[in-house]
């Protein structure tokens, strides 16, 4: 059966050009669809399950990296992840990171000779695709995200979270925080009994918290390590964390599963 691909690129001419170049370089490849923004790319990739996914880094909605992260998380277990090829006009840092993790990328404008190399690599990768935790794409993606630079802490460690509730400013010691969860434009801050909303992005908060004390378990969720009671695998094969002082289940993304291994 012929290999299939999905192209995520927000500039329509570039999407069409890549498709035309691919038709020459890999005539048997079937391009299932092109998506013009991150969210469409994610939903299309999940729906169509292509073998190959071309991801522009700068896209409206979700960035290429965020699509990859969400995709790895929502991808049905038991199925190998698509082979990922990132595309960028000029993201020096990202390019270095891709090279370090042996993830393929294309520089725009895409040139035929360079695309031929990508096609060869993708064909080789598809020939020896494995699934599960040893999926090489998943491993590389995990390494890539672990190596992502933390924004430098602007004002040192955070000790107190300040959240406005109506006309009042509520103060919660960081030591009492159990969960931080990104929700739309806010971050939910959960303690044993309480819930507050703050506007500071999760990434900024995380940069000012002790990385040993707070563990990211999902793209938008951070748990206090000492508050986790147990981690269980559901029937669908997913990991879920449970806290001592709160009843909700907290799904662990596949990219963060490696954190939970018996000593």
């Amino acid at each position: 059966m012929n290999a299939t691909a999905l192209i995520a690129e927000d500039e329509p001419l570039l999407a069409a050009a890549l498709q035309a170049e691919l038709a020459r370089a890999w005539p048997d490849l079937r391009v299932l669809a092109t998506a013009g923004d991150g969210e469409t790319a994610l939903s299309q990739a999940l729906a169509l399950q292509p073998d190959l996914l071309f991801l522009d880094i700068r896209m409206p909605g979700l960035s290429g990296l965020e699509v990859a992260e969400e995709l790895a998380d929502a991808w049905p277990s038991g199925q190998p992840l698509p082979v990922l090829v990132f595309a960028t006009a000029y993201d020096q840092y990202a390019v270095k990171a891709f090279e370090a993790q042996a993830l393929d990328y294309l520089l725009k404008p895409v040139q035929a000779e360079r695309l031929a190399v990508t096609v060869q690599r993708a064909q080789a990768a598809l020939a020896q695709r494995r699934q599960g935790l040893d999926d090489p794409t998943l491993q590389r993606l995990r390494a890539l995200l672990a190596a992502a630079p933390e924004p430098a802490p602007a004002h040192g460690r955070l000790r107190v979270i300040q959240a406005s509730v109506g006309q009042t400013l509520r103060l919660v010691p960081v030591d009492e925080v159990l969960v931080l969860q990104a929700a739309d434009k806010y971050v939910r801050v959960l303690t044993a009994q309480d819930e507050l909303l703050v506007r500071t992005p999760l990434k900024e908060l995380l940069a000012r918290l002790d990385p040993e004390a707070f563990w990211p378990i999902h793209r938008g969720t951070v748990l206090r390590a000492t508050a986790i009671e147990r981690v269980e695998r559901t029937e669908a094969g997913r990991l879920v964390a449970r806290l001592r002082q709160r009843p909700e289940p907290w799904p662990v993304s596949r990219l963060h599963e490696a954190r939970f291994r018996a000593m």
Partner: protein
Amino acid sequence: MADDTSAMANALAHPSHWQPAWRHAGWTVLGNTGIALALTVSTREGFWVNWVYSQCIGLAIWALIDLGRYALNHQGWPGPWRMSALVLAGTLAGYALGSAVGSFLLGRPLGSLMRLPEGTGGFLLLSLAAAGAATFVFTQRGLLAHARLEQAQAQQQASEAQLRLLESQLEPHMLFNTLANLRALIATDPPRAIDMLDRLNAYLRATLAASRADAQAHTLAREFERLDDYLALMAVRMGPRLRYRLNLPPELAAHPLPPLLLQPLVENAIRHGLEPAVAGGEIEVGAAQEGGALRLTVRDSGVGHDGPPQAGFGLTQVRERLQTAYGNAAQLDWRSAAGHGSQATLTLPLQTPATPRP
């Protein structure tokens, strides 16, 4: 008074103020020695006595004037009238103090200098002339050095601003993505490729010209042409996600404007407003005359942003250019709300159109 004292203490605590002060003291000692020599030739007093008195009086006058000018003005430049008064008062007080100290050092009764046959008036006048001349020379040299320093700083600031402007205009992302689109168009739509290349050409030429200090007379008409080039390039890239309108009333077409002043604002509207919006949106750039002011607006219907503008928005750069070009007579106002787009408004003094150059 307490403020003056602390200002003086601050000024004196600053090492850059001490260096000229010590140099002034050195010249004073040298000048005093010259006066002592002249007095030795013209009076019956020995050189040693003249030298001690000259140094005591001269240094006392120098100390009072050089310290006094920091008490009057924290930068040490109180202006000609106050400086003259300071020289007069400093000389009188310094003369009294210095002659007392000199008499003490030489073991003479206090005020013995006053009883010298030549009279006090001559010495006082001599001291006054010396102090006045020295102060004048030191002040002129100081002011000159100060002016040179300010000029050098202003030049450095201007070149840094130009460099930042150039960097922001030749943003690699914009350039390489545009080239990628151009490459795609050459194969599929050559006439459109040529149009895009012409616009890129005009855009690059204007950017390089604007980054040079000797930019030619620039008008609103030219500014809007360059914005049209830029937006047309972006429209090729973004397809139907970008719609734009440029409204320039004909009577304002010849109005002068610093080159590419609006460019960073339009780039903001694209980068922070429309690019993150999945459905894209609309940009409207307008010019209007309101009373004695020229009002330029850049509005976008993009994602918008709550709270103060972020560091990458380039507003500081625009404000710096406004300050350089118009001083405090121009304003930049930026409003934005998440989900409701953004609007930047420039208010400039209305200028009579520059006479067209031959």
